[in-house]
């Protein structure tokens, strides 16, 4: 049978709606991309069924990193949960700290000092930059451009230095805790941060030249992994993936939290909704975060409390209640649903990570009819972190 350019009716389906794939026919091959594979995002795998070099079905498998965080937290006091939550997401742990802390504060009725709000916003934007830098390296690496990853890893390391001087830790900062933040900014932080930001801007200019103006990168990513704006809400698509489809979803502007209402910014939006546009939206979003950090450092209060007085945390009981706190992380909407029952332990904590919808239902839909050599680039373009799927 000759190759038909219109792939919308392929693979064909049986009357019951299931795919008409006969593995014994010799036309199809099962392939596992992951969990140990250079073209996979973290500890997950995709079970591919291919016909020639075309994917006809893909199933996402997770569970390689399940540590039962949600269950663990049900057996920990509220303050004991604080150092656990950041471990749910390695490249951008601060959103876990913020969402958990904000949920506990809301249900416990704690008033957080204003200075802590500014420092929290600063930390979240620093974490966003780290996450985007890691993404840019991965996106270029999935298409064979190894040098981009080396450049972005270098500047990411500079940002990790800033995290280290602020919190004492490079990866898991454990800085945003219920009640506020652990400390203020160290002396000379602003100047060193400015130097880091300039270095990032300079590197991003190089990345734009070498990656986004590269003919191979363009040829392979333009038109790949198109997400129809009509399915954005159906599939729970949020963050830069939705914004690249022309939908200006950004929690920072839609339902502002912390000090975002006082900052001057507009969500970065694209139109073409393909891998190239998603990468470009993230690059521009990264530059916006650089600008936001400058705004924060110029306007934040330099004195005052950074922690609200906490009750005795060893006997801290929170009244019956439930709430949901969300924030805009680098992948999309990150949220914590917290239920308390009047005891000293959370009744239920549910973590809503954007990867949960992006890497499962959405990826399985987009991967059909994709060329096998483009699977890695498509997967990375959804910017998924598996730990937040399996918590």
């Amino acid at each position, binding site marked *: 049978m000759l190759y038909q350019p219109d792939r919308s009716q392929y693979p064909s389906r049986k009357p019951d709606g299931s795919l008409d794939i006969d593995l014994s026919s010799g036309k199809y091959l099962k392939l596992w991309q992951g969990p140990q594979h250079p073209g996979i995002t973290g500890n997950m795998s995709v079970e591919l069924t291919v016909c020639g070099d075309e994917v006809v079905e893909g199933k996402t498998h*997770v*569970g390689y990193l*399940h540590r*039962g965080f*949600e*269950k663990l937290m*049900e*057996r920990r006091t509220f303050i004991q949960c604080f150092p656990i939550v950041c471990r749910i997401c390695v490249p951008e742990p601060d959103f876990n700290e913020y969402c958990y802390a904000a949920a506990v504060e*809301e249900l416990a009725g704690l008033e957080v000092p204003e200075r802590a709000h500014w420092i929290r916003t600063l930390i979240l934007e620093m974490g966003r930059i780290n996450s985007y830098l890691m993404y840019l390296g991965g996106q270029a690496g999935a298409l064979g451009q190894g040098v981009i990853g080396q450049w972005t890893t270098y500047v990411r390391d500079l940002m990790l230095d800033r995290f280290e001087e602020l919190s004492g830790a490079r990866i898991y900062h454990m800085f945003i805790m219920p009640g506020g933040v652990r400390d203020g900014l160290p002396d000379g932080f602003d100047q060193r941060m400015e130097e880091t930001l300039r270095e990032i801007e300079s590197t991003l200019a190089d990345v734009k030249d070498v990656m986004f103006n590269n003919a191979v990168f363009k040829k392979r990513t333009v038109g790949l992994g198109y997400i129809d704006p009509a399915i954005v*809400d*159906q*599939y*729970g698509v*949020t963050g830069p993936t939705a914004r690249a489809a022309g939908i200006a*979803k950004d929690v920072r502007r*839609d*339902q502002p939290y912390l000090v975002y209402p006082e900052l001057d910014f507009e969500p970065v939006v694209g139109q073409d909704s393909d891998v190239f546009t998603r990468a470009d939206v993230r690059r521009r979003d990264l530059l916006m975060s650089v600008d936001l950090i400058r705004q924060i450092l110029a306007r934040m209060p330099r004195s005052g409390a950074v922690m609200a007085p906490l009750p005795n945390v060893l006997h801290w009981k929170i009244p019956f*209640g*439930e*709430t*949901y706190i*969300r924030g805009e992380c680098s992948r999309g*909407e990150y*949220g914590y*649903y917290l*239920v308390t029952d009047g005891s000293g332990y959370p*009744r*239920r904590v*549910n973590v*809503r990570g954007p990867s*949960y*919808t992006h890497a*499962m*239902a*959405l990826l399985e*839909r987009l991967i059909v009819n994709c060329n096998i050599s483009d699977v890695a680039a498509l997967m990375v373009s959804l910017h998924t972190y598996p730990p937040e799927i*399996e918590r």
Partner: protein
Amino acid sequence: MRDLYDRLTMAFPLGELTEQRPDLAFVTVPREQLRSLLLHLRDQEGFTHLVLLTAVDWLEEGHFQLTYLMNNRRACRDLGVRVMLARDPASMESIHDLWPTAATYQRELREMFGIDFPGSPRVDEDFILEGWIRTPPYRRDFDTLKFSDEVFAPRPGRASSDPAEFMKQQLYPDKT
């Protein structure tokens, strides 16, 4: 949020409204009304985004609470729809045809809480755990310590020695 609640109560037998914040409220609905309420919220009220679907185990009361959190981005508000289910057998109507992404949530709830969603795609396939045949682990009556004692053999402790004595023996073996 009260205006929305007043409109909804004209068509649906809702429980009391819990206003957590000006932009977040929770309401309980009988399970038979859930589907029509979600459809109404999606098509008439602009709650097009299913933020999450999860369960809370109220073991003492003998029921599960399913929470469907809906978001209306234009109006900047969220409504959590709660449904109470009997614990055994726990079963609920699937909404994967309304939001395809709900199938993933339902598959996880089937595995972690033992709540069945008949008709949901791949709902009986393993999601995170492989070959799990015990009590669903996120239920409150799943005893993690008992499970650990039964499944994992205790590892004997490592041999230890006094550092001063050890170094003495390493440096001056003849004098000991």
